[in-house]
């Protein structure tokens, strides 16, 4: 199977990594470079206590753990499938009691949706997953790009690297962060998944 997909107005490459799931790279939309590289470097699992005694210290005893999603945990092949309005890449990973399906969904209207579906019982019910994605966008090339976040009902330029979590504030389209290319005026609009 070729690792170059040219479909639904997108052209991108992919490969299975040792620890960062399916990586996509050099992705173009309608001939414009959008992404240098995107991957899922790690998914940590944190556990909380099943029961809490008032005599006990409320702090958590155990730290997090993780297992790489990659060649060693892959179940079956990486699948490339067309759907109405796009094309998607998917792969299932299993590590004992933890099961994951990673998807990259490319829509012909320009949307790119990274998905991680988590299932499997885990060690017990009281646990939290922390997926960490990495996106390296290059809109129409690396030059003339700026990163902005929506804050205080307006777009604010991010000048320095930092931690800019979703505070619940978004523009009218639900966009929280964006990367803007001055040259073309195009933007990559980043929207968190809506819950509920």
């Amino acid at each position, binding site marked *: 199977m070729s690792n170059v997909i040219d479909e639904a107005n997108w052209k991108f490459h992919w490969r299975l990594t040792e620890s960062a799931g399916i990586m996509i790279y050099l992705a173009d939309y309608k001939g414009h470079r959008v992404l240098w590289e995107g991957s899922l470097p*790690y998914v940590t699992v944190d556990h909380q206590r099943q029961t809490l005694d008032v005599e006990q210290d409320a702090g958590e005893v155990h730290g997090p753990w993780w297992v790489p999603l990659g060649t060693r945990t892959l179940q079956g092949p990486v699948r490339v499938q067309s759907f109405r309005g796009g094309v998607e890449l998917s792969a299932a990973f299993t590590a004992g009691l933890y099961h994951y399906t990673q998807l990259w969904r490319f829509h012909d209207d320009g949307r790119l949706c990274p998905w991680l579906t988590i299932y499997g019982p885990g060690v017990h019910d009281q646990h939290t997953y922390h997926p960490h994605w990495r996106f390296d966008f290059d809109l129409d090339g690396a030059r003339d790009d700026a990163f902005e976040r929506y804050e205080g009902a307006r777009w604010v*330029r991010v000048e320095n690297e930092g931690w800019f979590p979703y505070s619940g504030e978004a523009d009218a389209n639900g966009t929280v962060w964006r990367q803007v290319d001055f040259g073309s005026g195009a*933007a990559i609009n980043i929207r968190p998944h809506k819950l509920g």
Partner: protein
Amino acid sequence: MASSKKAVKPAKAGKAAPKAAAKAAPKAGGRRPPVDVTKSDPTLFDPLTPGEVADALRTLTEDRRVSQMAKVGRYRVICTEPLVVKPPHWMAGHRLARVVCYDYATDRTVDACVDLDAGVVAHLELTKSQPMLSRDEEALAVSLAMVDERVRAKLVLGDMPLSTMHYWGRTANDLAFARRSAAVVFGRTDGHASLVAVVDLLDNAVTHVVPAELW
């Protein structure tokens, strides 16, 4: 969520935009502008061949900065993967390998970028960070847990190792806070976990045995 159709007006932020634009523009009469990322070679992302992996490991172990690690030989190769550097970095366009090793003798991680075109270690970091477990370490943790008396005493019929997780403690009281550790989860294949054994990979010993429901 990429869209090249919808033009937007970027937010104003002082002098940042003119500076960035000026930086990107070629100087009159100066050197030609650097190659942009849009001209990158996709084959640089291809998986390393066995020969490239061997070449990268040879180059790393012959580097004098890690000669002691290679001489003592108490290290494991965690992963070797292709690394692609973006223009205008001087290594852009070179075939690069990222090699991550864990040196048990010094309890540190060796994270190297090997330039396969030039045959040199282009970048080397020696840190206390913890890379993922290698497959060998996962297998070792399982074998250590399986022969531990405390583990064997608590396993019931049908229990088997289900997975080996890279684990680190939350507080300094936990040995796994600062020492390379794995957690072997035992249970039945029907999806019920029974026991967790924490294995110290530096001392090759099981340090904790915890019923899964109390984890």
